[in-house]
């Protein structure tokens, strides 16, 4: 029993790293643009399909293929922000951005159905099915590689945010958009690039998700609701919070899964509700100065 729990904790941490990557993109977008990108889930699935096409049709290795899918997803993100989200202003912006990103999700989902049909797919590679035996734990290679890649990318995003001029502009915009604009930051450029980066990470998340789960165009809904729960639990806009919440939630789910696979995901959402009753701003959230 104890053995199983330890294994579940290790699994939870490894999978949590990958979820953290997708959640960081979502929370970054929220922090800068003050919107929730409902399309994030289906964008992850789109990333998975891109990897699928590259590996099945062109026989490009999953990790090598990221060199193509990451820039592609970045461009998709920039276009979404530039064409639609940028235009929304005013009191109903919260709801409107939600609807716009949801509409984008519907269009992407429908197009994926048209292109690939409803059958479940899974990405395959030699390292997807084999695993290494360390200290009595079975660790599939794909989880190890994915976790390592997630750590590297999140570290990269941290470095970008805290060590570069662009990062300073992003953080300034997150803190106070008006003030940032007043001191000469091009906030709309910051918003567009942030949206691009937030969506670009879904290429990596999608590849990992597609290698470790079977997916179809409809899989985005389950994913987005988990990601939303994670970023709310971590505190909206907080990258550290997204990391902590991903690992916490996925570990919890993975441990509960030993006893009751059916209820594991309910525990996931119940944890969200319980935490928010005690602490409405999440683990690391700042209380808003004056919520509207």
């Amino acid at each position: 029993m104890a053995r199983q729990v330890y294994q579940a904790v290790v699994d939870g941490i490894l999978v949590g790293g990958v979820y953290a990557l997708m959640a960081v993109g979502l929370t970054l977008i929220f922090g800068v643009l003050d919107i929730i990108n409902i399309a994030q889930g289906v964008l992850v699935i789109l990333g998975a399909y891109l990897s699928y096409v590259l590996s099945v049709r062109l026989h490009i290795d999953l990790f090598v293929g990221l060199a193509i899918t990451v820039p592609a997803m970045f461009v998709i993100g920039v276009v979404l922000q530039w064409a639609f989200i940028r235009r929304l202003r005013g009191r109903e912006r919260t709801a409107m951005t939600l609807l716009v990103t949801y509409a984008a999700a519907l269009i992407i989902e429908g197009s994926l159905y048209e292109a690939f049909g409803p059958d479940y797919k899974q990405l395959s590679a030699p390292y997807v099915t084999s695993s290494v035996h360390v200290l009595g734990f079975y660790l599939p290679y794909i989880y190890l590689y994915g976790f390592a890649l997630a750590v590297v990318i999140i570290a990269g995003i941290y470095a970008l945010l805290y060590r570069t001029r662009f990062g300073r502009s992003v953080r300034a915009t997150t803190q106070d958009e008006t003030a940032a604009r007043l001191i000469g930051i091009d906030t709309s450029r910051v918003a567009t690039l942030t949206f691009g980066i937030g969506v670009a990470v879904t290429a990596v998340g999608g590849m990992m998700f597609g290698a470790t789960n079977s997916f179809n165009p409809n899989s985005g809904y389950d994913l987005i609701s988990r990601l939303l729960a994670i970023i709310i639990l971590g505190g909206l806009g907080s990258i550290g919070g997204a990391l902590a919440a991903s690992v916490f939630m996925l570990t919890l789910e993975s441990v509960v899964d030993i006893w009751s696979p059916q209820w594991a995901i309910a525990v996931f959402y119940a944890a969200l509700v319980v935490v928010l009753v005690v602490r409405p701003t999440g683990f690391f959230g700042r209380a808003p100065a004056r919520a509207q």
Partner: protein
Amino acid sequence: MMGTVTRQRIAAALALAVLAGAAVTFPLVFSSPATTNYGVYALIFVTAVSAWNVFSGFSGYISLGQAVFFGSGAYAVGIAARDWHVSGVAVFGLLPLGAAVGAAIAVPFGLVALRVRRHTFIVITIAVFFIFQLMAYNLSSFTGGSVGVSAPFLPWTATTFNERFYYIALACAVVMIVIAAGVRRSRFGLQLRAIRDDEDRARGLGVHAMRVKLAAFALSAAVTGLVGGVWFLYLTQVQPPSGFDPLFDLSVVLMAFFGGVGTISGPVLGALIIEPAQLYLTATYTNGYISEIMLGALFLAVVLFMPRGIIPTAGEWITRLRTRGRPAVPAAAAAAAPQSAGKAAAGDTA
């Protein structure tokens, strides 16, 4: 000035009378079950969207979890009919149970979710929605699992079946619209809109924000639960993905925004346009994906070209048409007055 108002009142009353006449005679003119089917679904959505609007549209708390109440109402009626062996027309007596279950769920749900605002509130409603869908799947001894629950048999032919359900749904829709209009005019409705505009200030002025929000949430949930029961009896079955459908949540919000959030006629118009269009697209393109893409494209078009919905935008167009060609009013105060008066009138008739 008085003359215009009276004339507007009369015009509105006439329009309402024509609409009511059209609604009542619709199944008599188009008696084919395929056509009345559109009417039943449209009216179910008129009720559900108006119910959503009374809470979310007035208070500004966007709920993406209305399917919790819709599905629970459907399941409540279905399970009660199954376990208490209710058969025949008596099942309609169970509809108030759907409403009661909806309200009973809304109170604890609201006590947790209404503590947070904006995005966090939206996400909590989504999370609660998924918990309910999962419960419908997993509590299989109670809900029938993925097989779901079936309604008792009603000994009517296809034509009478649809026609009777049409009038039941019409009754629900009319009652809901009257409730919405009543709430909008009342002190309660004013408190809700004060919360939407600035909750902290509303509290400062003595609005018991939590009590008001919770009451509106429970009211909205009760009606949604009731109409969920009607939907279940009409469809004669419910499964977890159809009762607790994420597309339902989003369609309701889309319809409200399409027509105009916070108005009375906006949600009605949105539901009457979008639901039949959606049914038609699904029936025409049987693979369903095309209709999904078109729905998404419609969404984007609405948001980009009519960001405040049909009713407020159309109101502005009418005001602009009426004032066109008139000489400019000299005083600044007078220049501002007709426009705000026009807006207020558009808001009132809406």
